[in-house]
């Protein structure tokens, strides 16, 4: 007799396990795609830097050290805008032994240049010099330059922080100085969404596996009756699940890799990954990702098989005929704390002061909800079946369906849980987006008092310089304000860049009603900052008059006093700072993306727009903070 007859039997009749196979495959697809997206690399051609052995650039990340007593912690976040490096450093670096030449390079990546500032300094070495040794010397030179520089945004003046030194392939990254932020945005999406999707997939896999094994309970009972030991039953399940997980994983490899590429392409097209990004994961890493479902599938199968193997064969055969009516005690006992935790989190979220605090609770709430639903599935199914008993009067089909669910809540739960988890996850994401969009529209409509808005034509563009002054000088103008979305760094308490706006003009209250809670927002002067009520209470923890440090897109600290706290934070952003402060620090041309006008006739403004190309005149509405001329708001 040939060996492997059990597995041969499985292949002959795969029907009962096809669900497990598909679940393993889906898990593998998602895991492989997640790995591919998470490890996506953008092309970093060396271009002009090919001949430079060492490249020195300014800081590409903001580092802030907070010292509380003896404890000091440093937080770091990629800068939305790169401000370059003083070109005067080139002469200092040229003097470093081993350096043949130090050339300031500008115009990376978009050709914009700033006087006195280089994008980077390319160093060539004298013949025979060791790049490693020279790099150490360059580092020392930069450290001493730091000591003499009060201007540089350096967390520790005794280090070379504030500079980026690249050798080898890393030099290519500096050819596109915006890469870190774009990568960070893509990674943020990966860090928040992908674990949730994977947890859902793994729960669904566990439920499907448990269902498949329990449906085969009679088979295992029969094996026990004809002489299989518990260990043999467990090993049979182990072998089956391992085989199915391996087969499903392999089947998921190519679709997963394809999905990963599609995901990278989609993220790149939305600006969340650098253009031209491609998956760079090793095929072996992706192959390892295929095995993600294996431990879960095997563990879930073994748990179900252990239950089947522990009961006496006679009992198992009785149960497999009738199904297990009893609700699972241990599972319910574990699920109840999860359910209680979910309720506590929902209450906490409802009581949380503002959207920022609620948003912080979103991920744990979603995870706890997934766990609670997965564990309490049979109880919920039994409860729903009990609540639906009145439907029995609708006919025999409903009566039979309800009887079937009530008799076997575990099996019904195994089928329901994956659907419930997927629906919950997608619903949470979809509804949170539409809720925010709805609230933004509502707040935007309430906030804009201006009768007319002049807007830069192409997305990301800016209105001509001096337009605000021209509009203010027009007859009949009662108020005019210019607004530009801008990313601003804050410690709330995590160091991060959030969406805000740079605002300029006078009599702001005539064009904007931000729902000021305290202070005044008729004019914003240098040294002042307006903070949304949510950010003030749940994020920064500031009040009117509090000092606060805001970091401009290029990392420059802006120390200001809170002059206003406003309620309507969604349309424009959580922070408003004077436009004059941000000028030259955003990495983008100076100017407003929108000018809000009140009192001036629409005709006069239309004539103004006609005389200057690239201006769109709209009667009302604001472009939401984020995808304007600036870097998009950091995804939280």
């Amino acid at each position, binding site marked *: 007799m040939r060996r492997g*007859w059990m597995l041969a039997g*499985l292949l002959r009749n795969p029907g009962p396990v096809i669900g497990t196979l598909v679940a393993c495959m889906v898990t593998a697809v998602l895991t492989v795609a997640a790995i591919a997206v998470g490890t996506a690399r953008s092309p970093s051609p060396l271009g002009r830097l090919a001949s430079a052995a060492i490249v020195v650039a300014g800081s590409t990340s903001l580092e802030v050290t907070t010292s509380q007593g003896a404890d000091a912690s440093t937080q770091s976040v990629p800068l939305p805008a790169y401000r370059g490096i003083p070109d005067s450093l080139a002469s200092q670096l040229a003097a470093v032994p081993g350096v043949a030449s130090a050339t300031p390079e500008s115009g990376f990546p978009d050709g914009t240049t700033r006087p006195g500032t280089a994008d980077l300094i390319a160093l060539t070495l004298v013949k025979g010099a060791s790049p490693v040794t020279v790099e150490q010397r360059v580092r020392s030179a930069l450290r001493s330059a730091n000591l003499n520089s009060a201007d540089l945004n350096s967390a520790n003046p005794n280090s070379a922080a504030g500079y980026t030194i690249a050798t080898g392939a890393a030099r290519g990254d500096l050819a596109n100085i915006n890469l870190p932020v774009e990568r960070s945005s893509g990674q943020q999406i990966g860090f928040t969404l992908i674990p949730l999707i994977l947890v859902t997939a793994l729960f669904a896999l566990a439920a499907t596996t448990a269902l498949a094994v329990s449906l085969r309970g009679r088979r295992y009972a029969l094996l026990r009756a004809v002489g299989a030991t518990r260990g043999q039953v467990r090993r049979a399940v182990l072998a089956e699940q391992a085989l199915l997980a391996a087969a499903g994983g392999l089947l998921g490899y190519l679709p997963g890799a394809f999905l990963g590429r599609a995901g990278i392409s989609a993220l790149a097209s939305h600006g969340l990954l650098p253009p031209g990004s491609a998956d760079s994961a090793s095929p072996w890493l992706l192959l390892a990702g295929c095995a993600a479902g294996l431990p879960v599938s095997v563990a879930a199968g073994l748990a179900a098989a252990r239950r089947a193997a522990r009961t006496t064969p006679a009992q198992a055969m009785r149960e497999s005929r009738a199904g297990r009516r009893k609700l699972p005690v241990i599972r319910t006992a574990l699920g109840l704390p999860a359910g209680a935790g979910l309720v506590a989190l929902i209450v906490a979220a409802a009581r949380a002061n503002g959207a920022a605090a609620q948003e912080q609770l979103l991920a744990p709430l979603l995870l706890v909800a997934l766990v609670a639903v997965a564990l309490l599935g049979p109880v919920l199914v039994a409860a729903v079946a009990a609540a639906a008993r009145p439907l029995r009067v609708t006919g025999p089909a409903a009566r039979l369906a309800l009887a079937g669910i009530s008799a076997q809540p575990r099996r019904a739960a195994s089928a329901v849980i994956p659907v419930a988890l997927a629906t919950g996850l997608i619903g949470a994401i979809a509804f949170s987006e539409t809720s925010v969009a709805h609230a933004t529209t509502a707040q935007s409509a309430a906030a804009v008092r201006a009768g007319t808005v002049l807007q830069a034509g192409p997305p990301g563009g800016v209105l001509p310089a001096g337009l605000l002054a021209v509009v203010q000088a027009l007859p009949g103008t009662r108020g005019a304000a210019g607004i530009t979305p801008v990313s601003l760094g804050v410690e709330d308490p995590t160091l991060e860049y959030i969406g805000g706006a740079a605002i300029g003009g006078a009599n702001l209250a005539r064009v904007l009603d931000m729902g000021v809670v305290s202070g005044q927002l008729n004019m914003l002067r240098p040294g002042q900052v307006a903070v949304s009520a949510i950010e003030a209470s749940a994020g920064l923890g500031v009040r009117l008059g509090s000092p606060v440090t805001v970091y401009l897109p290029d990392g420059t600290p802006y120390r200001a006093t809170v002059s206003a706290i406003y309620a309507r934070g969604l349309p424009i952003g959580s922070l408003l700072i004077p436009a004059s402060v941000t000028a030259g620090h955003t990495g983008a041309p100076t100017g407003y993306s929108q000018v809000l006008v009140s009192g001036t006739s629409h005709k006069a403004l239309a004539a103004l727009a006609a005389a200057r190309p690239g201006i769109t005149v709209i009667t009302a509405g604001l472009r939401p903070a984020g995808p304007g001329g600036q870097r998009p708001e950091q995804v939280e």
Partner: protein
Amino acid sequence: MTTTNLALPCPGRPAGHSQAAEATTAALSGAPVRVDNLSKHFGRRRSRVTALDDVSLEFAAGSFTAILGASGSGKTTLLQCAAGLERPSSGRVSLCGADPASLSDRKRTLLRRRHVGFVFQDFSLLPELTVAENIALPLRLDHRHVTRAAVGDAAARVGLSPAQLRRLPPELSGGQQQRVAIARALLARPDVIFADEPTGALDPHTAQRVLSLLRETACGATVIIVTHDPQVTRFCDRAVFLYAGRVDAVIERPEPEDVAARLHALGERATALDEMVNAARSMA
């Protein structure tokens, strides 16, 4: 005790039969199956049901016994307790010289695997395994080498053709499937064969042929058949009647007509008892 006349010669035990099994067989003292004061209850407190109530029986080596009774009389529970598939609430079972309840699960399984064969009403064949694989299953689980010839021989003894060995159980008729189950039970040369309603799903003609086959091929094994079909007793040395979990009567060399009359009487008593219980409940 009646000696079974075998129509077919019984080959010796297959090579590889464990020394432990031989030792256990040697330790048999008299009857391979005996139950003493056996009771079995299901449920607790108010929902408690007594399936077996102080049953004592002895099944002699090589005997062919039918256990009969109305539905719910405890027939299947008696078989399962005697076979070590179910743990009795009280009393003692002796199966091939050992008390299954006192053994660990593994040793109880090994005892069943090496000394006991099963034939169930619904054939209990694994649908994804071929007929040959189903027949060889108990020996494969015991890590014993099974040759095609041995499987073919066992199949031939129950009238299955070599071509049928390669087919899957769902492709066979009910009678053919039960032959496969009998071949599976016989291949390991068990000391005891437990059959739970082996003809329950078969037409009378096929049932007669299957029982005849079982009788012919049992090879000296002690056979205990649970049934409600009086015709089964035609092939039995003894008929044991259960009523409400107790032994009501034991008839040696039973005649189907007498068995049918007694079963009918037991059925009447059971119906009357049910009506009394229901009336008492409705009054309460």
